[in-house]
């Protein structure tokens, strides 16, 4: 490298430092502290200089790296290798992942905390797969997906607490209700696309949440619904001491009572639900309606000129996507045994959309990787408390910098004329 380049990049780094100083100076440097009767400013210039120094150093290193004209940095090398593996051996990868997911509860290091995180990740994977139908396949940017999650959860909770029906009856009902709401949202937004659609769906998500807060007689308002029945293992409840005339799970199988039984059961339940969602999506993608969704995403006018009914096509996408959101919602309700509108805020929608987009629109494996990455990272940094959203944002920035189209952005045709060449 030439001396000129080094001086140039050094100058650039100093300039970066100047910007960093302007930003960090007032934000970090001047800390207000209340002493006695007023607010006083405590300067902390040490930290500011440390941060600015880090910025200068980082910028300098980036400059040096790019000046060397080697575009392959450590990270992009890693990701390209990774996508090469998944591209060629997508099937092997999927089978390995499913096998790992099946044995996961019995691995030696798996404890209660790991199981909880795994259940949460699987819930998001299922939501991601559900939303993938709407966003990834049909190309309808839905920012209010959490509404269907909420509808599913509340339908389950209300039906189960009112009628006392079992989980396996309430689950499909919740799905049907959510699908109905999907169609309800679908009708007014049929003519909208892109940004406009996104705004209306966002509003829809908020409307549902506000109704849940205010319709006190039915939803119990902000207090939420408590005492939602836990799922039973085909009629065997997970209780230490079952009611009279009942046999509980651990007694039936002659096991020591453990709360882990229920957790493991919930884990497998969401695993199966998620895999059903995935299987369904993979299947329906190859059917005429799936192709019509993708065609609609590509060009709506061309679709009309070929006689594809855009109304029906869009509504089915909304309804089916919403149905899976509803299933996930009922699972959420039965796992928590308590739901309130607080669980269904916009940030949930944003996370699900982020998972779909970062995973690579329409890619099923991408959703899995993005869920593990985003939810896993925020969980790992739980100790940082409010700063963990920085980790979340940082993860998003990293993916967008190195993989602007999402982690896995390769689309495979739904039908081949010449068979698989590989």
């Amino acid at each position, binding site marked *: 490298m030439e001396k000129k380049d080094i001086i140039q990049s050094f100058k650039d780094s100093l300039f970066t430092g100047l910007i960093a100083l302007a930003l960090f100076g007032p934000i970090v440097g001047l800390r207000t502290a209340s002493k006695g009767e007023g607010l006083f400013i405590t300067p902390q210039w040490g930290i500011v200089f440390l941060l600015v120094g880090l910025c200068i150093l980082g910028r300098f290193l980036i400059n040096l790296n790019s000046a060397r004209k080697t575009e392959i940095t450590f990270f992009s090398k890693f990701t390209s290798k990774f996508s090469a593996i998944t591209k060629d051996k997508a099937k092997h990868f999927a089978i390995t992942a499913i096998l790992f997911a099946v044995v996961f509860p019995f691995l030696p290091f798996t404890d209660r905390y790991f199981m909880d995180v795994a259940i949460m990740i699987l819930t998001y994977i299922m939501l991601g797969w559900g939303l993938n139908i709407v966003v990834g396949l049909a190309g309808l940017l839905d920012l209010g997906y959490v509404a269907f999650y909420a509808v599913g959860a509340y339908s389950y909770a209300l039906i189960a607490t009112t009628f006392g029906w079992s989980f396996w009856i309430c689950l499909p009902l919740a799905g049907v209700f959510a699908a109905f709401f999907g169609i309800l949202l679908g009708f007014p937004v049929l003519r909208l696309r892109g940004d406009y659609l996104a705004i209306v769906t966002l509003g829809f998500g908020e409307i549902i949440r506000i109704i849940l807060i205010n319709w006190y007689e039915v939803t119990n308002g902000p207090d939420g619904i408590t005492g939602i029945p836990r799922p039973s293992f085909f009629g065997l409840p997970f209780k230490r001491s079952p009611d009279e005339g009942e046999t509980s799970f651990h007694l039936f199988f002659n096991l020591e009572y453990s709360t882990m039984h229920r957790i493991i059961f919930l884990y497998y339940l969401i695993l199966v639900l998620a895999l059903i969602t995935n299987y369904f999506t993979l299947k329906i993608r190859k059917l*005429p*309606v799936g192709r019509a969704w*993708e*065609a609609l995403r590509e*060009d709506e006018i061309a679709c009309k000129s*070929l006689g594809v009914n855009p109304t029906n096509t869009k509504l089915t996408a909304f309804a089916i996507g919403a149905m899976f959101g509803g299933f996930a919602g009922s699972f959420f309700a039965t796992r928590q045994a308590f739901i309130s509108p607080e669980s269904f805020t916009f940030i949930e929608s944003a996370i699900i959309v982020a998972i779909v987009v970062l995973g690579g629109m329409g890619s099923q494996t991408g959703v899995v990787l993005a869920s593990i990455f985003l939810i896993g990272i925020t969980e790992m940094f739980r100790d940082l408390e409010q700063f963990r959203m920085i980790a979340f944002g940082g993860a998003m920035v990293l993916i967008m910098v190195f993989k602007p189209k999402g982690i896995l952005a390769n689309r495979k045709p739904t*039908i081949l004329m010449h068979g698989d060449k590989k």
Partner: protein
Amino acid sequence: MSNLLSVENLTMKFGGLTAIDDLSFDAKNNQITSIIGPNGAGKTTVFNCLTGFYKPTNGQMFLHKEDSKISLRKYTDFKIAYVAKVARTFQNIRLFPAMSVLENLLVAQHNELMVASGYSLFGLLNLKSYRDKEQLAVDKAKYWLDIIGLTHRADDNAGDLPYGDQRKLEIVRAMCIEPRLLCLDEPAAGLNPKESAELNKLLKFIKTEKQTGILLIEHDMSVVMGISDHVVVLNYGKKIFEGTADQTKNSKEVIEAYLGVDE
């Protein structure tokens, strides 16, 4: 030869602008009818009225079947292609670029396949009746790909094809809905002479082998004069001439419209 399409007193106004002014013409079965005219003459507007994208201010458009005739005004949107079987292509190509060539042709057969798949139910159950129908659809796609010589690229993304091939693909995609009337909006735009010649061959094949009338908007006179059976000339939304290709070439009105009048 029997009439396929008759347009009667078609008028289309956008606010104060009259894009089409009292236009009447006929198109016949198994013929290529060209609509030509200088830029802004209202040619694409005629297409948009015929294919249900615009609702004309006035006038009628009839598509003749054996004994009956259906009014195209009644059908809007996707029903023009679905029910009336009028297909069209676009001035700026509208393929599904991220989908494969074969998938593009299958989307064109959406409605038959949708019924065959029992509105997805039989398809999800993977019944043999659906698989057979799907195979038929693939065979039909292959038939058309063989004709335009793109079979070897069937599994590639439509957006990755060269421009000329995309044009041809869009035409055969429209043919996959088995239209009675095929409306082509400047199919030769951006093609080199060799590709234009291939296009002529394709259109002649469709005209003679299929029960399809073709309506063509085109600026490339080598295409228009080479294959048209009938030419309609528009200027400022009005029909100024109608006749065979040779008559059109020698018409005083047409030459004036294109080249202007001596003062």
